[in-house]
């Protein structure tokens, strides 16, 4: 069974907002009234917005056409972008970027929240405007949502809330797992900047071969070219390789031999934005016969040197490494990049090989764990999508009854 479709104006009150004049200091001088703008609801972790980051004064509130919205109102952005939602955790008012929904008696806030979130693409399609799209109050008022009885709404809201919370918890766990790795590193080796364990320092070039990669658009005399997969900056992320999109380049046989990647090679980007300095990952022979581009350095550790790739990568990618590169990097117009000689001179902390090996094991486990968790997150995402779809189609009940 499907739920009756009801226009928002028939089940809610649609309320806009406004901004007090910015150039009147009085309107902004005191913090009387919580006041929300679309960016405040753009990346919320929870459905509820507990408080507004910005406040306006009572005089400011009186001066413009913004209205106090009761707690439980579904704040709905009507532009930049259309369709972001949050539930007001307290009474607050908004700027003109909202067409907020004050739920009527027979509408549940949380149900309304998930419902609008689910239908946001449809609402967005109704937007008009040249530079950026906006939906008018009228459009929002006439927008139809499926509206089951209140009890059913609450049930659906509880289910979706649970599924949504699950996703968030999984994301938290993934973040925590990342933190764990950093914590393990510090625990094993100490902070390289302060070097509390007093490790000696050697130059990277003393323990590794460093080379740059193949240049795109170079001239080759050799006629016989082979399309060869190669690693670009986009592939080399912080601590892992993103292999979703592999580009190929025609290369001669000798070039392929020259730039061929081997297991345990460390790939490093040459920089770009300052925060990309030292970004790199360890090659694990993920793709056979793969080479690398000239914007990627390949660091190959000498076998006898007594270093493990993951450890070296972690040091280079740590705040310690970034700090070194930031000082050595040539910075013009905000672009920071490193060259081979700076990389050669990288001061590497000499730590015992057995700790490094333990670290390498931890990394291995960590990667597996992360893969597993990310797979789980994707499943939870589809679970949530599936539940939403069924809930608003009215199938969640039907399935329940059949079961």
């Amino acid at each position, binding site marked *: 069974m499907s739920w009756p479709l009801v226009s928002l104006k028939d089940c809610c009150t649609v309320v806009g907002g406004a901004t007090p004049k910015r150039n009147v200091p009085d309107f902004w001088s005191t913090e009387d009234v919580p006041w929300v703008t679309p960016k405040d609801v753009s990346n919320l972790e929870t459905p509820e917005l507990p408080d507004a980051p910005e406040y306006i004064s009572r005089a400011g509130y009186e001066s413009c056409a913004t209205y106090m919205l009761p707690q439980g109102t579904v704040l709905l952005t009507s532009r930049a972008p259309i369709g972001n939602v949050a539930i007001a955790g307290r009474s607050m008012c908004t700027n003109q970027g909202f067409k907020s929904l004050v739920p009527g008696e027979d509408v549940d806030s949380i149900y309304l929240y998930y419902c609008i979130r689910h239908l946001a693409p449809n609402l967005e399609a109704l937007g008009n405007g040249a530079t950026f799209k906006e939906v008018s109050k009228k459009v929002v008022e006439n927008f139809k949502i499926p509206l089951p009885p209140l009890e059913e709404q609450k049930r659906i809201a509880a289910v979706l809330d649970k599924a949504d919370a699950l996703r968030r918890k999984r994301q938290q766990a993934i973040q925590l797992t990342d933190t764990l790795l950093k914590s393990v590193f510090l625990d094993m080796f100490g902070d390289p900047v302060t070097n509390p364990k007093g490790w000696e320092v050697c130059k990277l070039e003393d323990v590794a071969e460093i080379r740059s990669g193949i240049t795109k658009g170079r001239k080759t005399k050799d006629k016989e070219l082979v399309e060869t997969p190669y690693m670009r900056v986009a592939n080399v992320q912080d601590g892992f390789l993103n292999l979703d999109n592999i580009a190929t380049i025609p290369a001669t046989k000798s070039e392929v031999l020259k730039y061929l990647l081997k297991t345990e090679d460390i790939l490093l980007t040459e920089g770009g934005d300052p925060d990309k300095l030292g970004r790199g990952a360890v090659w694990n022979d993920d793709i056979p016969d793969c080479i690398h581009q000239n914007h990627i350095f390949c660091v190959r550790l000498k076998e006898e040197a007594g270093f493990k790739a993951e450890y070296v990568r972690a040091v280079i990618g740590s705040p310690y490494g970034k*700090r070194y590169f930031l000082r*050595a990097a040539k*910075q013009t*117009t905000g672009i920071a990049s490193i060259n081979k000689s700076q990389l050669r001179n990288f001061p590497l902390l000499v730590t015992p090989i057995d700790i490094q090996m333990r670290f390498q094991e931890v990394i291995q486990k960590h990667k597996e764990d992360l893969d597993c968790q990310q797979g789980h997150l994707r499943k939870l995402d589809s679970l949530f999508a599936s539940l939403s779809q069924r809930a608003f189609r009215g199938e969640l009940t039907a399935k329940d009854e059949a079961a």
Partner: protein
Amino acid sequence: MITGDLKNKVDQLWNAFWSGGVSNPLSVIEQITYLLFAKRIDDIHTNRENRANLLGEPIDKPIFLDGQAHLRWSRFKDADPEEKFRVFKDEVFPFIKQLNGAAGSSYTRFMADAVFIIPTPALLDKVVNMIDAIPMQDRDTKGDLYEYMLSKIATAGQNGQFRTPRHIIKLMVELTAPTPKDIIADPACGTCGFLVAAAEYLEHHHASVLVDQEENYHFHHSMFHGSDFDSSMLRIGAMNMTLHGIENPVIEGRDSLSEDHATNRNAYTLILANPPFKGSLDADAVAKDVLQVAKTKKTELLFISLFLKQLKPGGRCAAIVPDGVLFGSSKAHKDIRKELVEGQKLEAIISMPSGVFKPYAGVSTAILMFTRTDSGGTDDVFFYDMAADGFSLDDKREAVDANDIPDIITQYQAHRAGKGDFTDRTAKAFTVPKAAIAEQGYDLSINRYKEVEYEEITYDPPHIILDQLEALEAEIQQDLKELRGML
């Protein structure tokens, strides 16, 4: 800053020209400048008249002689458009062209090929009325007005021409502190911003330049030297100087780098400049002695060599250079830096944020300061990491509170006076001894010496994080069960 009402007036002026058929921004500025000048000389004349009346003496240095009264702005501005057009075109304009003393004066030289191109009486009438309504008494307003008008030249940035922001110019003038004895030059003067600012500084700090006869003569005739190879710019620059009350500056049209003009060596005691960073260069024509310092085609390097040649021994220089000059790894780059550190006396590097030249360019630059000694003498080099210049660092360049400039001046003066402690390299201002610079291969970029205060990031120990993870994992399992129950 030009804002609000005044800005609107200037914009309207611009629109009037535009709709009147004069669309090249440079021409518009030139035409406006002529008119501003016509108005200005009338004001000066009136002042002198008033003073003469007060003292009961004949007018000192009258601009308008008997029978020329109809050329005065205050007279012709109220005439009907046709008459105004005729008077301005046929009489006032030729009059302006030969004003300001002898034929050799810089001003008239560039005016010789000036052209009056306002096409119709109606447009002239409109423009005259608009200009009359703009308050031009205040010298600063005029400067800013100029700056605002100049900002409309859309071609800025070509051939490496970047208009230097006024506040940066002022900073450089403050740091070099010109004296009444200085001979000041800008070999890439453009609109003469540096020279004007130096003149203003002297008037403010050394009022004697206006009173002392000898100093005053030097001030008006031999103190300021500017050259540029863009004749339109020169005209505007010469006008700018004249509008700022400098009677006869030495403004010359020439390509400073070329062998043809290799005569002005050992000539100046202070060079203030923002030389072109790139742009075309006739490599064969570059003066031989300039190439001695470093063989290169890069104008930014050539200009530094040139400054060294043009300065008298003991002369000082403050120039804006792109960051590349400070760390570039070519031989020429290294040679120049080594020469500055070992052969001359490098004084200071003030690293500026990359937004300073916006919206023209996002290039990151620094102020390079040195003294020509020919015998070394570099000691502790002063570095400053300027993070804010009082304007937002985006294309809008709105005024903001954050501003390091006053601090730069204070700190540099303290450093010069041997006061204060500049050993903390995490501070904005610090000094680096010459030996440390030599050790870094004469790399002068501030990043090489600046130390970032390290904020240690602390994480919970691994076992605590593991506990948290396990708890979270258990919660997830529990939630999954509950969810199943709900369905």
